[in-house]
C-alpha cells in the first residue's frame, strides 16, 4: 500500500506538470492560472486551520516567513508557466525539482548541516546537468535561428 502510494504520488505530480503544459497550450493566462492554482489550497488550508483551532500564541515571525516564502513559491510557479511557453516542459519541470538543491546548500550554511559525500555528488551532478541543459537550449536556439521551421 505504501509503495503504491509512492507511485501514485509520482503520477499525480507528473500529471500536474502535464496539466500545466496543457493549460499553456489552451492559452491560459500564466498569472491567472497561478492565482487559481493558489486560491484552492489557500481556501482548504484556511478551513483546516479554523477547524483545528491551534491553541497558544503563534509568533509573528511564523507569518512573516510564511508570506515571504509563499511569494517565492508563487513567483517560481509564474516563472515556470512563462518558461514552458518558450522552452520545454520537461526541462522546466526538472529545474523545479533540481531547485531542491538550494535549501540543501542554505541548510549547510545556516544550520551547519553535515556535507555528506552523497550531497556533494548530488549537488555536483545538478550543476553539470544545468550546464548541459543550458548548452542544449543555446544549441536549439541557434538551430531555430538558422532554420525557423524547426521551432515549435
Amino acid at each position, binding site marked *: *500500500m*505504501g*509503495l503504491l*502510494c509512492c507511485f*501514485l*504520488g*509520482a503520477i499525480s*505530480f*507528473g*500529471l*500536474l506538470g502535464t496539466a*500545466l503544459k496543457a*493549460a499553456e497550450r489552451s492559452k*491560459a*493566462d500564466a*498569472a*491567472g492560472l*497561478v*492565482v487559481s*492554482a*493558489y*486560491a*484552492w489550497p*489557500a481556501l*482548504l*488550508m484556511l478551513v483546516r486551520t479554523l477547524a483545528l483551532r491551534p491553541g497558544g500564541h503563534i509568533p509573528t515571525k*511564523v*507569518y512573516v516567513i*510564511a*508570506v515571504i516564502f509563499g*511569494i*517565492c513559491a508563487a513567483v*517560481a510557479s509564474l*516563472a515556470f508557466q512563462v*518558461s514552458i511557453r*518558450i*522552452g520545454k*516542459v*520537461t526541462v*522546466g*519541470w526538472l*529545474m523545479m*525539482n*533540481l*531547485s531542491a*538543491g*538550494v*535549501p540543501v546548500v542554505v541548510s549547510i550554511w545556516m544550520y551547519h548541516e553535515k556535507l555528506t559525500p552523497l*550531497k556533494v*555528488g548530488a549537488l555536483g551532478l*545538478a550543476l553539470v*546537468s*544545468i*550546464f*548541459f*541543459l*543550458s548548452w*542544449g537550449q543555446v*544549441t*536549439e536556439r541557434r538551430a531555430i535561428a538558422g532554420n525557423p521551421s524547426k521551432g515549435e
Partner: protein
Amino acid sequence: MWFLLMLVILLTNGMSAFGLKMIAAWKLSETVKYPYLTAWYAGGLAAIALPMLLKGMRLGKTEIFWGGVAGALSIGGQIAMAVALSSGIPGHMVFPIAIGGSIFVVALAGRLIFGERMNLPTTLGLALGFTAVVLLGVS
C-alpha cells in the same frame, strides 16, 4: 529570457519550502504548520493577484478550470506521499520515487503528447538532472 526564468525558478522554488525547515529549527508545535501554510498560500496568492487586480485583469474559465486541476493534482500528490510515509516507507525511498517518477511522467508526456524533441546536450542534462534529483531525495 529563458536563462533568467530558469535562475528565478531555481532560487525561488528552492527557497519556497525552507520556511518549514526554519519552523522545525525554532522547535514550534506541529499545529503551527496549518496557519503557516494558510499564510504561505495567501502570500503567494496576493503577490500575483494584486498586480492582476490593479491592471483590471479577470480570471477566465480556462484559468479557473486548469488551476483547479493543478490544485487537485498537487494535493493528491501530497496526500499520496503523506500516506506512503505514514505507512512506514522511509523518506529516502518516498521522495526519490515520487519526485523522480514525476519527472519521468512529464518527460513521457512532453514527448508523446506535446511532441517535444531533445537534442543531445538536453538529453544528457535531463539524465544527469534526474540522477541528481533522486540523490537529493535519498540524502
